[in-house]
């Protein structure tokens, strides 16, 4: 049973607010007294997911959801969808544009990094529709 949820809208291309959803999530988790080791992992993956929404998606939501024993970070977007999931899961693969790279983002490694920093990781995507990524953490 879900005992806590918090949802944040993330806009495409809004670098001014990029990172604010993940830092709010982190603050929430600190208040909950969740172990610092897990907070650190969640902070890393939620930041990557948020930045992916800003850079690659047409906009979407980042959601924190907790049931008694599991914590979920869910990223859902409104497209454009990923054609080849295997490809994006490769280390170093990047589709980021030159302008985004010039800002220090888009060096690749986003998704594999999220996977490394989560206990369970799943990605579903439909090209030209949407992508849903879930990073799961066991609290107990």
């Amino acid at each position: 049973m879900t005992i806590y949820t918090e949802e944040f809208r993330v806009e495409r291309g809004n670098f001014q607010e990029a990172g604010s959803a993940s830092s709010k999530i982190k603050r929430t988790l600190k208040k909950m007294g969740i172990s610092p080791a897990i907070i650190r992992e969640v902070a890393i993956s939620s930041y990557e997911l948020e930045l992916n929404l800003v850079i690659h998606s047409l906009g979407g939501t980042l959601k924190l959801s907790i049931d008694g024993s599991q914590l979920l970070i869910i990223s859902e977007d409104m497209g454009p969808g990923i054609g080849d999931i295997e490809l994006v899961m490769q280390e170093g693969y990047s589709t980021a544009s030159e302008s985004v790279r010039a800002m220090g983002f888009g060096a690749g490694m986003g998704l594999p990094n999220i996977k490394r920093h989560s206990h369970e990781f799943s990605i579903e995507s439909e090209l030209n529709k949407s992508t849903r990524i879930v990073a799961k953490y066991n609290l107990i």
Partner: protein
Amino acid sequence: MYQHSVRVDRRKCVGCTNCIKCCPTEAIRVQKGKAIIRGDRCIDCGKCLGACPHSAMVSVTTPISALGCFKYNIVIPSTTLYSQFRGICKLEDIYAGLYALGFDAIYEEAKAAEILAEAMNRYIHGPDVVFPVISCTCPVIPRLIAALYPSLIDNLSPFVSSNELAARVAKAEFCEATGIPASEVGAYYISPCSAEITHMRSPMGMEKSEINGVFSVRDIYGKLVDMIGKLPADAPCMIEHRAGAFGLGSAVVGGLSIAIGTEHYLAVDGMESIIECLDEIDNDRMGGLMLLEAMACRGGCIGGPLTFENQFVAKNRNRRLQYSQPRLDLERDEHVQKYVDSPLIKCDKEYEAKDIMKLSDDMLEAIRMMDKMESICRQLPGLDCGSCGSPTCRSLAEDIVRGQAVEMDCIFKLRDKVRQMAQEMVDLASAQKRG
């Protein structure tokens, strides 16, 4: 027991919201018209001292009359003290003034900073280091980490602060040279900041501080300025181990990093900026960074709340002082090498996380409280006016779920309630009587 240096002068406090708004750990509330500092949350940064327009936030330092407590007195002048004096560039004048105040020996904090810099240089090139190493020369930093960033505790430098090291080395040297037992010797620090008083009373990273008293730079400035120039020409004015340019530079943020000699460091001053950088480090976005030198006060110690001189003027004087002294080769300096490996330099107690953010020790309970807090927060006006006595609507919501406040503390909520009750009265009065 309340261990902090900063206290509220209730006669001067008018219950405005300036202090509650500036506190980085949300440690202050206004209750019944007066500010109250929550000791468990205060990290002694001293921001409220500068923010209060009524001078109602005061820092309690050691009175100069305390000098009679020990038979022998050593003074540890902070490097900031040197840059307070208009027209005095010769450190000998300041030393002479300190001897004339009744101190038996002088040991400069700047010299201890040189020992620390050399030790830190060796440490960051050694094995088993958690990077970035976070320097603890500013006493606020370990307190901030313990309170808000428990995951970074292992990054804290294993060394004591420069003034603590100065007190330890000064006593060791004095007792070695004179044969006087340590119990008869007191060490007094002349401090630019309030956190040093708290450090003396309840230090972190050690059982007990060797500092026996903390005077404010301002108090000593007043005494010295009166005396300097009136002293006889043959008054004693020499000290044994003088610091060079590197040590003197440590009063300004970035000075310690330069003395350590690493290029991959961050030198950050001011609480907001430090918190921003700690977030970056905490989120693993500072790959390869070796050192974080953070100082709670703007500009570094020269911007401390207990100083007299404008920080930018002081910074200029500090720079001129640095130029007047040699850049000692710390690897060859005999005194530095004598203490760089000594046990005196190391913290002998683990830092403990305080984790003041946590709503409850029981995680499920904390999650429920967080949920309740969010729903209360949505009902509040979101103006963060501070009239309730909490710094923001969110913190009022937190105080409510912690049982330390009620919803009617919000003046907007109260007004709605009054309006609703008034309407009920009207409805009641105009209700038709049956029959």
